[in-house]
């Protein structure tokens, strides 16, 4: 039991945080009335809670990890779609179509999905998840462009960083032993530099005097970046990213409340 708790500590902590955020969001919905992004966020929280509990219960009851295309995968796809819908609904004017953003989203998402497939071998499942991730990334890019949250230099840095990760991981898939560890470390440095960038930017906005329109887009992008970090990292990077992910959930709530204040 102790080994189980230690092994799933992140999951258990995350469930606790999710319960707190759900309580806070429900309270807001009750006081302020329904706001579409907040209701969609409630759906996201329920899905995260259900998948979190499902994971812990499944391991506890069966002692084995998940079977085929399970509730976890469905939940993951649902979270991607709901995050995109939540962000899209938070803008008064609909987000316009952007072919460059679509191409970048497809490249980034299928690059990630191909590497998940190469590492784990679950190609069909990963490609399906990649398709929905592409939809979320497409929405995020358009959201960030709308609010002008990233400068041209920052976009370029993310582009080069992503290309670097794909290159390092593509080589790592074909190698064995210490080389893999070195390549993994190098790609983790890029992933975590991205996470650090998002955290610093978000904290700066939160410490500022006036609300920033792009905060929600930045926080959701940060969350998605961390998810991608986790899916392409082994321990200890996975565990560290998972812990930061829990913090990011709280930041999504804070950003949503700020946006809600502007919308009302």
């Amino acid at each position, binding site marked *: 039991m102790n080994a189980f708790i230690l092994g799933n500590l992140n999951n258990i902590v995350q469930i606790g945080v999710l319960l707190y955020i759900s309580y806070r969001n429900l309270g807001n919905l009750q006081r302020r009335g329904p706001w579409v992004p907040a209701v969609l966020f409630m759906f996201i929280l329920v899905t995260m809670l259900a998948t979190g509990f499902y994971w812990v219960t499944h391991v506890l009851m069966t002692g084995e990890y998940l079977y085929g295309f*399970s509730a976890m995968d469905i939940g993951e796809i649902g979270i991607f779609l709901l995050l995109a*819908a939540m962000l899209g*609904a938070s803008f008064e004017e609909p987000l316009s179509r952007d072919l460059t953003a679509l191409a970048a989203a497809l490249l980034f998402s299928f690059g990630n999905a191909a590497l998940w497939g190469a590492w784990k071998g679950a190609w069909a499942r990963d490609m399906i998840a990649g398709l929905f991730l592409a939809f979320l990334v497409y929405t995020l890019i358009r959201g960030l462009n709308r609010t002008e949250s990233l400068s041209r230099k920052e976009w370029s840095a993310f582009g080069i960083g992503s290309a670097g990760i794909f290159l390092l991981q593509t080589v790592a898939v074909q190698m064995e032993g210490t080389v893999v560890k070195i390549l993994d470390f190098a790609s983790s440095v890029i992933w975590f530099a991205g996470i650090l960038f998002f955290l610093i930017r978000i904290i700066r906005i939160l410490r500022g005097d006036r609300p920033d329109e792009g905060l929600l887009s930045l926080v959701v992008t940060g969350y998605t970046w961390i998810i991608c970090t986790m899916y392409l990292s082994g321990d200890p990077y996975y565990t560290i990213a998972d812990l930061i992910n829990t913090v990011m959930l709280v930041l999504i709530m804070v950003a949503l409340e700020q946006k809600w204040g502007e919308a009302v």
Partner: protein
Amino acid sequence: MIYSENILLCIAAPLLVAAIFLRGESRRFAVFFTVGMCICLLSAYISGFLEFAGVMDAEKIPLYVSPVVEESMKVLPLIFVLLVIRPPEEGLFLGSVALGTGFATFENCCYILTAGAENLAYILVRGLAVGVMHLVCVLMVILGTILARRTRTFSLAAFVGSLATAMCYHSLYNLLVSQPGVTAIIGYVMPLLTVLILTVPYRRIRKEI
């Protein structure tokens, strides 16, 4: 073995006759209730077929396949109504409640005939939990659908996302009640607790949308 088609016919016949004499919302409720029962039977056919085809073992079907099949099937009549009849939001809520209740009622009937009804306390707890769970799931999807209509550009994403939420919730319930003991008790309490927690904000949302 139970003859579920015969049971369905026996329960559905008086409801359909009643629907002829009813008007407005009452008729809609009777029709959707019957549709819910039919959907339950069709879902059982699909799950049974997948088991027969050797996709998964009989014990694993309720854990991994049934929630996906059942939630997808429950949504189909609602999509049809939404696209063809285009009812007002109130009509959609009523239809989905009737559909979920019909589904749960038929599932309970079949369960009681298979497992027996000697233990009243257990039957009550299980019946109530399943009933509430199906209702919660279908209400999640319908709330998502109504929100989807409002978001316009993200309507499909919100709709499929809420369907995924319902599937996850249903999967968790099925997993928890799959073995007797503490987990089953948590599973039976879960839908009731969800309803208790969500009732107040749900009413507020319903009042304003």
